[in-house]
């Protein structure tokens, strides 16, 4: 991989593809987008984990009340 990210532009009127290194501003914007994507993915993973933990907790509490596994599954 090259050190500087490359943007490709294909001119449809000529069919010629040109490659150019990204500008500093473009790299900064790209890094920010990557950080946001990573944060979004982590937030989703955290939310999924919290939901799974809450479900497990609810199942445990219902089991302590005497519900069978099938009965718990029927209401969750």
């Amino acid at each position, binding site marked *: *991989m*090259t050190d500087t*990210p*490359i*943007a*490709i*532009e*294909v*001119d*449809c*009127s*000529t*069919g010629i*593809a040109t*490659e150019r290194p*990204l500008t500093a501003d*473009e790299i900064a914007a*790209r890094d920010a*987008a*990557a950080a946001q*994507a*990573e944060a979004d*993915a982590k937030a989703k993973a955290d939310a999924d984990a919290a939901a799974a933990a809450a479900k497990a907790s609810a199942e445990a509490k219902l089991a302590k009340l005497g519900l069978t596994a099938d009965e718990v599954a029927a209401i969750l």
Partner: protein
Amino acid sequence: MANTYYLIASNTVGSGGASSVTFSSIPQTYTDLVLKSSVRSTSTDNWLNISFNGTSATVNWSARWIGGTGTAANSSSSTNSTYSVLENDSTTTASTFSNSEIYIPNYTSANAKSLSLDNVFENNATAAQSFLMASLWNNTAAITSMTLTPSSVNIAQYSTFYLYGIKNS
């Protein structure tokens, strides 16, 4: 019914990868556009965002989609979000690439543009995804350029893009 496909332009990403691929100066002489792509990401992110005419990838977009992972199905809708193509990420089987097709009817019209997308990423494992999306780009400008940008990092080497023009007569 489209009866004529013309290859307008194509690109295969080279050894350095690419942070974006743009098709510029799209001719205004066809009825519809079709972009066929085979894409892999160099990161664990697997979305390739689309924008037209150099505008933001999120402004004036709305979409409805349905997908499946092999173990579950899901669906959702969005507004002012990105219109995205699924790409194979770096965790999928080596040297596998996604397949996708975007159909853009009446791309030169002065009305909002509707699009459809179908794609799947390949994986020699249980987890894989297929994805269908219908979307609207609420902009009256004719489409003259199209840019595909990963949510993060690079488009991998050997990813390919083929842009076709279609005439219905």
